[in-house]
C-alpha cells in the first residue's frame, strides 16, 4: 500500500512541457463549459418544466463527475510521462462525448416534441 508521501512523489514528473497540467486545465475548462450549458438550460425550466430541470441536473452531474476524477487523471498523466508509458483514457473520453451527445439529443427532443407550458 502507498503512503501519502509516496502519492505526493508520484505526482512529480519531468516534463518541461507541463503536459499533465495543461491537460488538467483543459478538463477544467470543459467542466466550466458544462456548467454554462446547465445554467442556460435553467431558462427552459419555466417553459418546459421538469424535463428541462432534469437536463440542468444532468449537465451539473457530468461536470461534478469530471471534477471528482480530475486527480486520478493528473496522477495518471504524471506517471505516464515519468514511465514513458501511458494507456489512452478511453473511458473518460467516451463518457464525456456520449454525455454531450445525450444532452444535445435531449435538447432537440425538447424543442421539437415537448409542448411549451
Amino acid at each position, binding site marked *: 500500500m502507498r503512503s501519502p508521501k509516496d502519492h505526493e512523489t508520484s505526482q512529480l514528473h519531468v516534463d518541461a512541457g507541463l503536459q499533465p497540467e495543461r491537460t488538467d486545465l483543459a478538463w477544467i475548462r*470543459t467542466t466550466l463549459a458544462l456548467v454554462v450549458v446547465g445554467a442556460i438550460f435553467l431558462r427552459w425550466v419555466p417553459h418546459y418544466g421538469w424535463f428541462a430541470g432534469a437536463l440542468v441536473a444532468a449537465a451539473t452531474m457530468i461536470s461534478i463527475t469530471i471534477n471528482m476524477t480530475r486527480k*486520478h487523471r493528473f496522477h495518471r*498523466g504524471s506517471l505516464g510521462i515519468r514511465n514513458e508509458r501511458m*494507456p*489512452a483514457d478511453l473511458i473518460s473520453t467516451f463518457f464525456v462525448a456520449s454525455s454531450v451527445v445525450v444532452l444535445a439529443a435531449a435538447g432537440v427532443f425538447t424543442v421539437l416534441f415537448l409542448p411549451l407550458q
Partner: protein
Amino acid sequence: MPKAEPSRETGEGSGSGRRRFETRILAGGTEPDPRFTLANERTFLAWIRTSLAMLAGGIAVEAFTTDIFAPDIRKTIAVLLLSLALIIGGGSFFRWLNIERAMRHKAPLPLPAIAPVLAAGGAIVALVFIAFVLMRQA
C-alpha cells in the same frame, strides 16, 4: 526516483479484462509517447468545448429569442445548432479514437472530418440567421 512495476504505475489493473477490451478498441499497436496521448486528449476536449458552445447557443436561441423570432424560425435555428452540437460531440470521440489508433501504428494522422462539418454547419446557421433577420426587417 522511486519506480514501481509498469502495470501498477499506469494505474490500471494488469492484464485485466478492461485493459484487453481497451486494447481491442484501440486496434492493437503499441502505446505512443504519453505526451502525444495527452495532446490528443486536449484536442478532443477542445472539440467537445466547441460542441458545448453550439449546445449553449442552441439552448440560448430557444430561450432568449421568443420576442424576436416566430416559433418556427426560433425552433429551426435552435434545432440546427443542437444537431451540430450532437454531430461535433459524437464526431470528436471518433476523431480522438482514429488519431489514437494511427499513433499506435505509427501511421499518418487522419484528416479531421468534423472540421468541414463544423465550418459548413456554422456557415449554414449564420446564413439562416441573416435571412431571418432580414425577413423580419422587411
